C-alpha cells in the first residue's frame, strides 16, 4: 500500500489567505511538483475568532461591499490563476467566457447602491461538475457520448447559485457519468492533484476538488453517489459535504443511480460549504424526491459553540486492516484533539459496514443500466450514423461510452434480468436496509459518527488499473 504521506497538515492551524502584497509568480512547469508555490488570489485576510479558517464567501462579500476590491478584479485574479495552473491540473473541461461580464454586472449593481441587496454568493467563483447541466456551457458528463452537448436548461442547483450572485467559472472534470474514484475515467483528460501532480485528485468529482484546492475557484459543486464528493475532497485536502438525499434538488444532475445520487458542495472551509449548501438546497417541484423539510432553521452557521459533551462514535470497522497506517494516525490524532475540546469519543462497531460496498455496486450498476439507456444517439449527444435502428443504438453507445461505463451497464443489466432480480437487486436493497438500521441504532447513543473519508491518501496516477478485457 502507499507509504508516502505528506507531513500532517491541520488546516485549522494555518491562515488560508496571504496578504494582498503577494503576487502570483510565473509558472515553472518542469520543476513544480505541487502547486504550493502559487499563492491564492489576493484578498484581505480575515479570520474568525479562535483561529478557525475564514469564510472566503463572507470575505468576498465584505470586500465587495466595503469597496476594497471589485468583483471584476476578483474575477480577473481567479481567472489568471486558473490559466496559470490549468496546464498542470486540467481541472476544467470547459471555462466560461462570460465570467467578467457577470462580474461587471455585480459591480454595476454595487455602483448603483444596491450592495446590500446582493445575493449571499455575489462575486463568488464556482466550479460546476460537468454532469450538472448548464444552459450556456457544454455539459458532457465527462463522456464522449455528450461531447459538445448543450442542455436547454440549468440544473436547479446552478439556477439557485446564479440567483444568489454566484459566477460559474467553468465545468470541472469527472469520471465518466460519475463512475469511478480517480477521475482517470474521464473521456477527455486526466486531472492532477494540486498537492502532488503525479497523483490523482480522487473521484468522481476530481476536477471540483482540485479546482477548489488550487484556488481556481472559491467553492464547487460535485456529485456523490458512493463517496464521489467526500473522497476527492479528502485526497485534495478540502472540505467536501455530501448532503442528505433529498436536501438538494437532483433536477439537472445527469442521473447515475437515482436512489443514491446527491449534489454536494466543496470548499476550503466548513463555513463556506455550509453557506453554499444553504444557498442551493430546498424543495424543488421538478424533483419529486426533494425534501420539503427546511434546512438551518435556527442554526447560525458561524456561531462558535463549545464541543464539550458531544458524543462521538468512531466506527471501528473503518480502521481495520487495509487502512493506511498514516490514515490511522491522523484519525487518532483527530480523536485526541476532539477529546481535548471536550468530546466524549467512543468506538462503535457496525459489522454490516463492509456490506455497503458490494450492495452499492449492485444497486448503482442496476440503476445506471436504466438511467444510461437514454444515451441512444437519437435524442442528444453524438450519433454514429448507421443503416438501421438497432445498429444506430449499438454503434453510438459503443463508440461514445468508456469501458468503465460499459462494464457497469452490463453488470446492472445482468443483475436485473429475469431470474436474477431476487438474488442480486432485491438482496442488495435488503442489505441496504440493514446498514441503515445499524447506523440509526448507533446514532441513538452518539451525536455523530466519524471515520476516515478514504483508507489511504491519493493514489499515484495509473495505479488503479482495471482490466476490462481479460
Amino acid at each position, binding site marked *: 500500500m502507499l507509504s508516502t504521506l505528506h507531513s500532517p497538515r491541520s488546516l485549522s492551524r494555518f491562515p488560508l489567505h496571504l496578504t494582498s502584497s503577494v503576487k502570483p509568480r510565473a509558472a515553472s512547469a518542469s520543476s513544480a511538483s505541487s502547486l504550493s508555490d502559487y499563492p491564492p488570489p489576493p484578498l484581505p485576510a480575515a479570520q474568525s475568532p479562535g483561529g478557525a479558517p475564514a469564510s472566503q464567501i463572507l470575505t468576498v462579500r465584505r470586500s465587495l461591499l466595503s469597496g476594497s476590491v471589485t468583483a471584476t478584479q476578483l474575477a480577473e485574479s481567479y481567472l489568471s490563476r486558473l490559466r496559470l495552473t490549468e496546464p498542470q491540473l486540467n481541472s476544467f473541461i470547459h471555462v466560461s467566457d462570460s465570467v467578467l461580464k457577470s462580474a461587471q454586472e455585480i459591480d454595476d449593481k454595487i455602483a448603483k447602491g444596491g450592495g446590500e441587496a446582493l445575493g449571499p454568493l455575489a462575486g463568488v467563483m464556482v466550479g460546476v461538475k460537468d454532469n450538472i447541466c448548464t444552459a450556456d456551457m457544454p455539459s458532457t458528463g465527462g463522456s464522449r457520448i455528450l461531447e459538445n452537448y448543450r442542455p436547454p436548461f440549468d440544473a436547479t442547483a446552478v439556477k439557485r447559485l446564479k440567483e444568489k450572485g454566484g459566477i460559474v467559472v467553468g465545468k470541472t472534470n469527472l469520471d465518466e457519468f460519475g463512475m469511478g474514484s480517480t477521475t482517470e475515467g474521464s473521456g477527455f483528460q486526466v486531472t492532477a492533484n494540486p498537492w502532488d501532480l503525479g497523483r490523482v485528485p480522487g473521484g468522481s468529482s476530481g476536477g471540483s476538488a482540485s479546482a477548489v484546492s488550487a484556488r481556481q475557484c472559491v467553492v464547487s459543486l460535485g456529485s456523490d453517489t458512493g463517496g464521489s464528493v467526500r473522497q476527492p475532497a479528502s485526497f485534495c485536502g478540502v472540505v467536501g459535504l455530501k448532503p442528505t438525499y433529498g436536501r438538494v434538488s437532483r433536477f439537472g444532475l445527469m442521473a447515475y443511480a437515482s*436512489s443514491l445520487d446527491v449534489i454536494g458542495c466543496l470548499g476550503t472551509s466548513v463555513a463556506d460549504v455550509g453557506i453554499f449548501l444553504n444557498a442551493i438546497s430546498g424543495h424543488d417541484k421538478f424533483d419529486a424526491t426533494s425534501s420539503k423539510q427546511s434546512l438551518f432553521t435556527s442554526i447560525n452557521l458561524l456561531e462558535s459553540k463549545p464541543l464539550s459533551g458531544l458524543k462521538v462514535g468512531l466506527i471501528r470497522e473503518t480502521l481495520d486492516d487495509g487502512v493506511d497506517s498514516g490514515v490511522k494516525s491522523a484519525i487518532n490524532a483527530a480523536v485526541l484533539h476532539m477529546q481535548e475540546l471536550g468530546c466524549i469519543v467512543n468506538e462503535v462497531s457496525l459489522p454490516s459496514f463492509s456490506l455497503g460496498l458490494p450492495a452499492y455496486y449492485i444497486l448503482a450498476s442496476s440503476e445506471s443500466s*436504466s438511467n444510461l439507456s437514454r444515451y441512444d444517439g437519437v435524442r442528444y449527444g453524438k450519433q454514429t450514423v448507421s443503416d438501421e435502428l438497432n445498429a444506430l443504438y449499438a454503434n453510438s453507445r459503443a463508440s461514445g461510452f468508456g469501458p468503465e461505463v460499459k462494464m457497469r451497464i452490463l453488470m446492472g443489466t445482468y443483475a436485473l434480468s429475469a431470474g436474477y432480480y431476487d438474488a442480486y437487486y432485491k438482496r442488495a436493497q435488503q442489505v441496504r436496509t440493514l446498514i441503515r438500521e445499524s447506523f440509526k441504532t448507533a446514532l441513538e447513543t452518539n451525536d455523530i459518527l466519524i471515520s476516515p473519508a478514504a483508507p489511504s491518501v491519493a493514489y499515484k496516477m495509473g495505479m488503479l488499473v482495471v482490466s476490462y478485457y481479460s
Partner: protein
Amino acid sequence: MEEDAGKLMHSGNGSYVDLNRAGVPLLEIVSEPDMRTGIEASEYAAELQRVVRYLGVSNGNMQEGSLRCDVNVSVRPIGQAEFGTKVEIKNLNSFSAINRAIDFEISRQVNLHSQGQQDSIVQETRLWEEGAQKTVTMRKKEGLADYRYFPEPDLPEVVLTKAYMDSVGKSLPELPEAKRRRYEEMGLSMQDVLFLANDIAVADFFDATIQKGADVKLAANWIMGDIAAYLKNEKLSINDIKLVPHELAELIASIKSGTISGKIGKEILFELLAKGGTVKGLIEEKDLVQITDLVDIEKMVDKVIAENPKQLEQYRSGKTKLQGYFAGQVMKASKGKANPGILNKVLVEKLNAKV
C-alpha cells in the same frame, strides 16, 4: 397506473415521433376472465366508458384513443376446469368491434377444437381486421419480454390515508348503476332509465328538472322526445342549449295547469332551446295564455260557425269530419290559444244543436 408513450406516425417520406401525449397518466383496468360473450364484454366496456365520463376523468372516446381496449379469449370444453390457451386481440377501435372480434375468435377456437386441432391455438397476439371482420396472426412473434423492472427511485412513495380515501369516496357523483336503480324506483320504464342514465349531463338535467317539482314521466318524455331531437338536429350536447332545467319544469307545470296548451308548449320549447328566456316571459310577450273561458270560446265558435254557413250545411248533412275544419278556424282566430278540449266540446254541442 402507467404513463402513455409517444406515437409513431408513418408517412411517405419517413416516420415521425409524436411525443405530445407522452407522460399522460393511464389507468389500466384488468377484468376477471368471467365474461362469456362478445356483447357482455362490449357492454362492460361501455359501462366503463360511462363511469369515466360520469367521474369526469376522461371523455372515454375510443376513436380518439382516450379509451383503449385489448381482449383475451380462451375456450375450454364444457366440464373442464382448467382454462384453455388464451389469445390476445388488438386493434379494437369501437364497442361493436369488441363484440364482433370476440364472437369471431370464440367460433374460430371452437371450430379448431371440433376438428381436433386445438393444439394449433397458441398463446399469441392477433389483430382484428375491421374490413375482413376476422382476427389474423401478427407477423412477428416475439419472445417473452424481459423488462428488468425495479421500483422507480425518482418517484417517492405515495401514502394514502384512510381520511383521504374516504373524502374521495364522498366526493364521487352518483355512479351509473346507482342512478339507474333510482330511476327505476321512480317508476320510469327501462327504456327511459337507460336513455337518461347514459349521459351524466342528461341525467343531471333531468334530476335538476324534477327537483323543481316537475312530473317525472313528463320530464322524461320531453327530454327523450323533443329535446333529444333538437340536440340531434343541431348536433349539440345538452350542456349547449339555452334551456335551463327549472324553465323546463315551469313549462311542464304551465301545461299541466292549463295555462298553455300542449301545442303552444312545444312552440315555446323550441324558442327556449334556441334562445333561452323564461316560460312566463314568453307567455306574456307573445300573449300565449290558453283561452279556457267557456263564454269566450262559445263566442269564437259562434263567430266561426256564422262565417262558414256552407261548411255548417255540409257538416249537418253528414260530413262530420268537418269538425276539424271548424276547430282549425277557431284555433286560427284565437291564435292557437283556445283550449282544444273545451273547444271540441263546445263545437260538438253547437254543431249538433238543433237550430
